[in-house]
């Protein structure tokens, strides 16, 4: 069991390309850490540095209390699951799982014992004599996991392992991975571009963009209190409404956008935003539709079953979205009034996107 | 009664007269062979009303620098434009056989060695020349019988010779002069042309000198090999008959090689190799001639052109240091000492049976090989035609090119000239012999084993082609004197 510490980790490719621009991260022992961000954000490069496939340009990496910067991947006590699983096509499932033991020249009887044990855990005992090509997507996933955990690594690295699965299987595997994490109690570092995966699985999430760390927090912390507009819009489905406008204080604070105005209680608005051009971020569940507030027209309805997404506009083509109870019925063309729940508003600086408190 | 008798006499007289004038009219006018050929060609063109006649010659590429000027001359004389297509001599037999199937007539005259005749005649590619000869009256006087016999096959004439290419032996006169004393002290006679193959080997042994040695006051920076000769596949068969000293088959086509005489021949043929350069089994003319010219061998059994090559080549180190000898004798099948000089190549001319105008092609051959025109070719410095007529002995141009001692020697040697095997499938017979000689020289099999192998291989070929027909052809060629030797009376 081990913690992971990254100190000001930088990776440059050549002179001009900075893939990772100084990451500081502490993953505590047994934690499930998800690194998330859009493609090109540096998350995979960070993972590759931890695994040892890439050498950092500067900075320090520790696993436990050992500096691992110059250790071979195989000597870092890691396990890794790859995006395309990277099962060895010419070996049987048994030999794939046993690979880590074979290279250590462990005696045959022990290999058999440990493989069959891990195969039972992963429910793939019936596949052992097959070739990877003969396994389904979910089975192959389990084989890859089995191959990784058989050497009992202190740290498990996963590089978008679920991306090749279909939607249903992906959701099932999320639960499976969570369960595995509970059982193994080892440290997980999980890279994904899928915010939902991050939300559902992580103990903590590190959000990256363009090589920089944007926020490190628990899933709910990130959801509720995004440090900037990028994080705010990256998480949540549907995407957070962003309304450019101005906060004015003529007695009571007022938000003025091009198409509507809205007044709020004084404590609902951070002081630093007053008198500034801002972007107002509101998640759909924090938009209320009722008798009060600004006037708008319903343009589009997306029923989700238990809830319904209502897209509306205030005379322009920028739609806002609200999430309402499925019982409430709307249809395009309905004239409505809308408002924002006081605790559900995020104020972002127009220039920097930083959250205003 | 008397009247009738007289009238009959007169009638007969008239008939004889008419007939004789008719016969006389069939021979083309002209004092010389060449004139008759030219007139024959002109008459043919006139009779067939040919406009700008064109013919083609399939030419051994070796002659590409010497033949074309004679083709131009022929055009001036007769108006016949004779082009040429050139191939290496190893490729031409296949071209001839392909013509047997394709029958294109694209070659009119074919230039090659006599050994292609049996297969080509079998396939029907060669035109018998006898009918044309009756009109053109060629003249072969002064050509020795062994050479002349090669012109015909199964009683018909197919080929006109222009090359006395029978093998000869050349020795280094400078080395012999230096070593004369020592040699005489040892063998009781001065070194010179050896009488027998055994004596040649004895000389090879004596003169064989390692690199760096000083002998007879000569310092040898290079090794001096006692001998060099053709011992590779495709060449051994051209020399072996000199060692056989008799026929290769009896009158029923049973091979005579698996006999005490045959085994002796194989042993003598292969044992001298130890005094030859180690590479000799892989060598053909392009290696042997320069090696001889470089002065690294004492003796060379070869085509006769080797001497001219070593005298004229600017890089040669042995100019004027060669002694030309006839082929040494062996104790042949008859038990007597005989000299046999196989005609190892020998260029000559044939007419394609599928030619549109075979008779016209024939006149070119007659002209070009005629006694005067032929001697011009033999004297041509760029050519590879070797002396073969008695007239060459007095022809100044020929003597200038070939030197008098050589011409004298080769004309003497021509008395012993014999043909190689003139029966169908001969290349296959040759190959069996070559392969087994190679095996003996490499030390893989004994001479006795080789004799057995060759006997078996030859019988197999004879049976495959048809023993009956082979016997017929073989007897005819023996009878023609092509091999000098005749069947032993006991056979």
């Amino acid at each position: 069991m081990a913690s992971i510490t990254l100190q000001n980790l930088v990776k440059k490719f050549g002179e001009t390309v900075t893939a990772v621009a100084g990451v500081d991260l502490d993953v505590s022992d047994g934690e499930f850490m998800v690194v998330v961000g859009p493609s090109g954000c540096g998350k995979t490069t960070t993972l590759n540095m931890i695994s040892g496939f890439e050498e950092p340009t500067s900075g320090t990496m520790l696993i436990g209390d050992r500096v691992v910067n110059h250790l071979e991947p195989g000597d870092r006590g890691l396990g890794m699951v790859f995006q395309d699983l990277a099962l060895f096509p010419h070996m049987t499932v048994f030999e794939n799982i046993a690979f880590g033991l074979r290279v250590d020249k462990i005696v045959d009887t022990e290999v058999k014992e440990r493989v069959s044990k891990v195969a039972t855990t992963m429910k793939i005992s019936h596949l052992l004599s097959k070739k990877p090509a003969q396994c389904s997507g979910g089975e192959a996933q389990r084989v890859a996991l089995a191959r990784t955990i058989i050497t009992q690594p202190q740290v498990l690295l996963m590089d978008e392992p679920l991306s090749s699965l279909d939607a249903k299987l992906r959701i099932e595997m999320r639960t499976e991975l969570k369960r595995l994490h509970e059982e193994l109690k080892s440290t997980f570092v999980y890279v994904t571009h899928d915010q939902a995966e991050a939300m559902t699985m992580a103990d903590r999430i590190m959000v990256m963009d363009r090589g920089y760390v944007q926020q490190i927090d628990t899933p709910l912390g990130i959801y509720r209190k995004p440090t900037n507009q990028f994080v705010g819009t990256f998480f949540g489905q549907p995407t957070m409404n962003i309304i450019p406008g101005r906060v004015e204080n003529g007695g009571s604070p007022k938000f003025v956008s091009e198409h509507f105005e809205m007044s709020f209680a004084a404590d609902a608005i951070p002081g630093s935003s007053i008198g500034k051009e801002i972007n107002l971020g509101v998640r759909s569940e924090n938009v209320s539709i009722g008798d009060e507030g600004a006037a708008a027209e319903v343009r589009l309805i997306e029923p989700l079953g238990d809830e319904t997404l209502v897209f509306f506009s205030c005379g322009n083509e920028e739609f806002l979205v609200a999430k309402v109870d499925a019982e409430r019925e709307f249809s395009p063309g309905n004239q409505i009034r809308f408002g924002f729940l006081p605790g559900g508003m995020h104020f972002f600086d127009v220039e920097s996107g930083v959250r205003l408190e | 009664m008397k009247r009738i008798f007289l009238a009959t006499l007169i009638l007969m007289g008239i008939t004889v007269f008419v007939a004789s004038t008719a016969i006389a009219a069939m021979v083309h006018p002209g004092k010389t062979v060449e004139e008759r050929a030219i007139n024959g060609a002109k008459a043919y063109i006139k009779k067939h009303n040919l406009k700008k006649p064109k013919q083609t010659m399939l030419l051994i590429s070796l002659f590409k620098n010497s033949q074309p000027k004679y083709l131009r001359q022929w055009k001036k004389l007769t108006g016949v434009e004779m082009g040429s297509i050139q191939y290496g001599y190893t490729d031409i037999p296949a071209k001839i056989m392909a013509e047997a199937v394709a029958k294109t007539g694209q070659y009119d005259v074919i230039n090659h060695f006599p050994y292609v005749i049996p297969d080509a005649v079998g396939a029907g590619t060669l035109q018998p020349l006898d009918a044309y000869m009756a009109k053109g009256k060629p003249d072969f006087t002064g050509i020795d019988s062994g050479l002349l016999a090669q012109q015909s096959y199964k009683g018909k004439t197919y080929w006109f010779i222009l090359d006395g290419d029978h093998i000869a032996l050349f020795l280094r006169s400078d080395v012999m002069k230096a070593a004369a004393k020592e040699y005489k002290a040892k063998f009781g006679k001065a070194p010179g042309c050896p009488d027998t193959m055994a004596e040649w080997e004895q000389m090879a042994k004596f003169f064989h000198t390692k690199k760096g040695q000083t002998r007879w006051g000569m310092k040898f920076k290079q090794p001096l090999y006692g001998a060099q000769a053709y011992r590779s596949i495709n060449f051994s068969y051209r020399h072996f008959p000199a060692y056989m000293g008799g026929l290769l088959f009896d009158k029923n086509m049973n091979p005579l090689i698996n006999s005490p005489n045959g085994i002796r021949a194989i042993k003598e043929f292969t044992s001298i190799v130890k005094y030859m350069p180690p590479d000799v089994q892989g060598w053909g003319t392009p290696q042997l001639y320069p090696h001889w010219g470089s002065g690294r061998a004492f003796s060379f059994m070869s085509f006769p052109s080797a001497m001219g090559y070593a005298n004229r080549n600017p890089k040669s180190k042995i100019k004027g240091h060669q002694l030309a000898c006839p082929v040494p004798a062996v104790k042949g099948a008859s038990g007597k000492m005989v000299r046999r000089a196989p005609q190892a190549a020998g260029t000559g001319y044939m007419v394609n049976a599928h030619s549109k105008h075979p008779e016209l092609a024939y006149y070119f051959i007659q002209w070009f090989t005629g006694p005067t025109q032929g001697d011009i070719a033999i004297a041509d410095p760029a050519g590879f035609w070797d002396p073969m007529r008695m007239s060459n002995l007095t022809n100044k141009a020929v003597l200038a090119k070939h030197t008098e001692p050589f011409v004298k020697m080769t004309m003497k040697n021509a008395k012993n000239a014999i043909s190689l095997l003139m029966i169908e499938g001969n290349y296959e017979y040759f190959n069996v012999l070559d392969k087994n000689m190679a095996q003996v020289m490499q030390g893989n099999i004994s001479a006795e084993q080789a004799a057995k192998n060759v006997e078996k291989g030859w019988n197999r070929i004879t049976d495959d082609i048809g023993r009956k027909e082979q016997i017929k052809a073989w007897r005819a060629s023996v009878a023609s004197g092509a091999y000098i030797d005749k069947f032993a009376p006991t056979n």
Partner: protein
Amino acid sequence: MAQATIKERKSLSAWLAQEKVFRLIPFIMVEATFLLLLAIPFILTIYISLLKWRANRPFEQAYFHGLLNYVRVLTTEDFWWALGRTFYFAGTAVMLELLFGFLLAMLAYKQFRGRRIYITIFLVPMMVVPVVGGYNFSMIYIDSGPLNQILSPITEAMGVNPRIRWLSHPIAAQWAIILADVWQWTSLTFLIFLSGFAALPQQLTNAARVLGASRWQIFWKVHFPLLKPAIMIAVIIRSMEALKLFDLSVLLTFGGPGTSTETIAFFLWRQVWQFNKYSFGAAASILLLFMFGTLIFYGIYLLVRERDIVEEERME
């Protein structure tokens, strides 16, 4: 009359334009090409192989001979010698070509400065016309020539006469031919292996590294098995060619010294074009076709089997 022709033409084009006819046109072309190019010569060869025909007799005199030609071929010692020699040459040459091609590809597949230039240089021998290559080697192999000069420090140190008679010593000549073939065709195996190496998925290497495999283990347990299809391709392509070895033995040694470099192709050439044994040659080539065909099909079977496994995996 003219009208009738136009009408006919119209109906012909109409007939051709019919869907079921039109669809067949490509097949007809393929079949016709097949017939003309392959089937007819093949059937003719079989026919000739059943005749008794030497070119020194007119074809009109050829007669039916049954399978006797085949018996003759199979009982000809030289045929078997030449065949054995050919397998020896092909086997040795292809093995060396695989080895050198593999090593070169291993060195060249990683990125380094001037890699492209090296690769281009390695590929040059393959582009050389075989006849030219053979001629060059006949120069190189001269016993006082460049090869022996280069080798002389080694040969002299070993106490061997440095003037190795490459073309006239029976065993050296065999190696001369093998080496010339290796020089020319290592390029091809190099190219095949280079693409094989380039196609190796990086992730598999990474997976093995993370599992603690050493470079040696990665090579033998992961890379090598994955390169098997490339190896099979190289073996089959090269063997097919090497078994037909002809030009080098003609150009360098003309089958000699003795018969030590007479390959089966050379043997056939001599039987047909020197000895005029057309039907014997036809029978021998049919027999060889079956022998080599069986070998090659077995090779292709192995290749396809290997490929299926790998390709199924890729489709995942």
